[in-house]
């Protein structure tokens, strides 16, 4: 990573907007873990379904719980699950993809066949099936989504390892007497970092979305703990009377995803190998 290229990213309005949105999301998640204005699960029957007002900035829900506090607490869960999922899928996928691409042969064939089969299950279906087997907890969506996103990472990393393996500088490394292992570690893997970072950003967005969808279906984070998807799901019963219940978590989710997408695009432009030539 050269400073010159970081300078260019900070000059793009889209990248800045994306970065700011991500920072707000992370700040919300941290705040939600440390301190919320109200107890996110405390029931208050005297203030049910109050519209946004100075004491409850985003109003209250059908149990009189503060929406802002639930939003912040939900951020901890959503961002946490998405982050861990992206981390697991990326590192495991990179390991498998790099090994398959570098070794080739029967191992590569087996990996490719397995990944193609995994791709035949949409992420949500995979998650649903695992929930059916293991029952819902915070770990089920993490495992299910990590497995579901594994093929994408494996494919990207394997493809770039295959390209790198044929590149002259890898031949040069062999010619100068480096072993295959050293060539892989010193010359091939570091050059797959850029596409993997871009992909990890996308994965984070997909996982955030999928986790919310699972909670929306009632199969993610079990209540009363708050989650953005769960809040959206509950809001449907009070649709006409309390639209803020549907708007707030949806907006939080959309803006987070927008931030991830904008930042991911900027990162992709920045790390694009075609930009590396003078």
């Amino acid at each position, binding site marked *: 990573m050269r400073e010159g290229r970081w300078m260019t990213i900070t000059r793009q309005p889209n990248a800045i907007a994306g970065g700011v949105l991500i920072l707000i999301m992370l700040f919300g998640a941290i705040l939600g873990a440390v301190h919320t204005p109200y107890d996110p699960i405390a029931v208050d029957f005297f203030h049910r379904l109050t519209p946004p007002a100075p004491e409850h900035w985003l109003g209250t829900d059908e149990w009189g719980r503060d929406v802002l506090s639930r939003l912040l607490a939900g951020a901890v869960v959503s961002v946490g699950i998405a982050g861990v999922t992206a981390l697991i899928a990326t590192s495991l996928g990179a390991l498998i993809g790099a090994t398959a691409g570098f070794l080739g042969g029967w191992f590569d064939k087996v990996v490719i*066949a*397995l990944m*193609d*089969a*995994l*791709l*035949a*299950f*949409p*992420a*949500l*279906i995979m998650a*649903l*099936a695992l*929930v*059916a*087997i293991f029952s819902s907890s915070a770990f089920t969506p993490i495992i299910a989504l990590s497995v579901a996103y594994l093929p994408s990472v494996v494919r990207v990393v394997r493809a770039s390892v295959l390209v790198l393996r044929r590149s002259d500088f890898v031949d040069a490394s062999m010619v100068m007497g480096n072993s295959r292992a050293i060539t892989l570690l010193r010359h091939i893997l570091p050059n797959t970092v850029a596409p993997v970072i871009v992909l990890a950003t996308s994965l984070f967005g997909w996982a955030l*979305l999928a986790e*919310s*969808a699972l909670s*929306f*279906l*009632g*199969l993610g984070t079990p209540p009363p703990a708050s989650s953005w998807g769960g809040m*959206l799901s509950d*809001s*449907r019963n009070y*649709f*006409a009377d309390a*639209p803020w219940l*549907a*708007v707030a978590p*949806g907006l939080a*989710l*959309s*803006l987070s*995803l*927008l931030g*991830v*997408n*904008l930042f991911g*695009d900027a990162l992709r432009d920045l790390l694009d190998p075609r930009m590396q030539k003078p």
Partner: protein
Amino acid sequence: MTRYILTRVMLAIPTLLLALAAIFFLVRLIPGDPAQLMLGDVDDPAALARIRQELALDQPLPVQFGHWLLQLLRGDLGQSITLDSPVSDLLLPSFAVTASLVVPAVVVAALIAIPAGVVAGWKQNTRLDVAVMTLATLALSIPSFWLGLMFLLVFGVYLNLLPVVGYVSPLEDVWQGLSYLVLPVMSLALIEAGVLIRLVRASTIEVLGLDYIAHARAKGLTEAAVIVRHVLPNAMAPTWTMIGLTLGGLLGGAVVTETVFSLPGLGRLMVESVFARDYPVIQGCMVIVTVAYVSVNLLTEITYPIFSPGARDA
């Protein structure tokens, strides 16, 4: 051409078999007696014995799998635990509902995305391009189920234009059926269009930079002819693949949209079965989703050489 198609089919078969094996063994992962699982919480030794035999539980696992595959081929997916009906009778109508949601959604998305993406790529870095790209990125960042909810709020609750939730088959009553489908289709289509626009634009820009486009212009063709004859077919190749992947994925993955609009589709059936621990139905849903995904992809690959004749001989 025949050889190309045969090759694609032969390559799809192991994928499908592996996926089916995964489904088969996933249910076997659940602790307890598989026969009891398939029967539910009923204490009926006779039925249990019958299911045992149906599943060939006394045979080794590979034989059980082969047995299960044979039954699949005959369309026998077992009996639902909670609903008194064969699984296959539940799956087909649900799949029809999902297809009537997803297919129009993908078509609408493609109809929006292809012209928008080509124009944005052609007018790269102009205000028009920035506007299209901003809208596309926004669309792609909105979860489809939230967009669906907002549509319901605006069109159903405030404007009272369209029915809020429910489903009538368009085969029974065309207009009423369509009115139930408009909002769910649009909420899916807009978001998928966001993804597609970006891809179409990127491929358009890439194709525009190639020598044969310079040649086409140097031949004196109008810009319209250059775009339609030379850019579009080549930009369509990656787009076509993406459309296939989207369609294949949505056939199983439209779960949330179906939930928002209370459509009795495949995803909805699966969610309800998960709640009810109706394993035969869960298994059946996964089989149909997998088969649909693999077949749609196969179809996409077989038709791919229309846009990229070189793929046929590769």
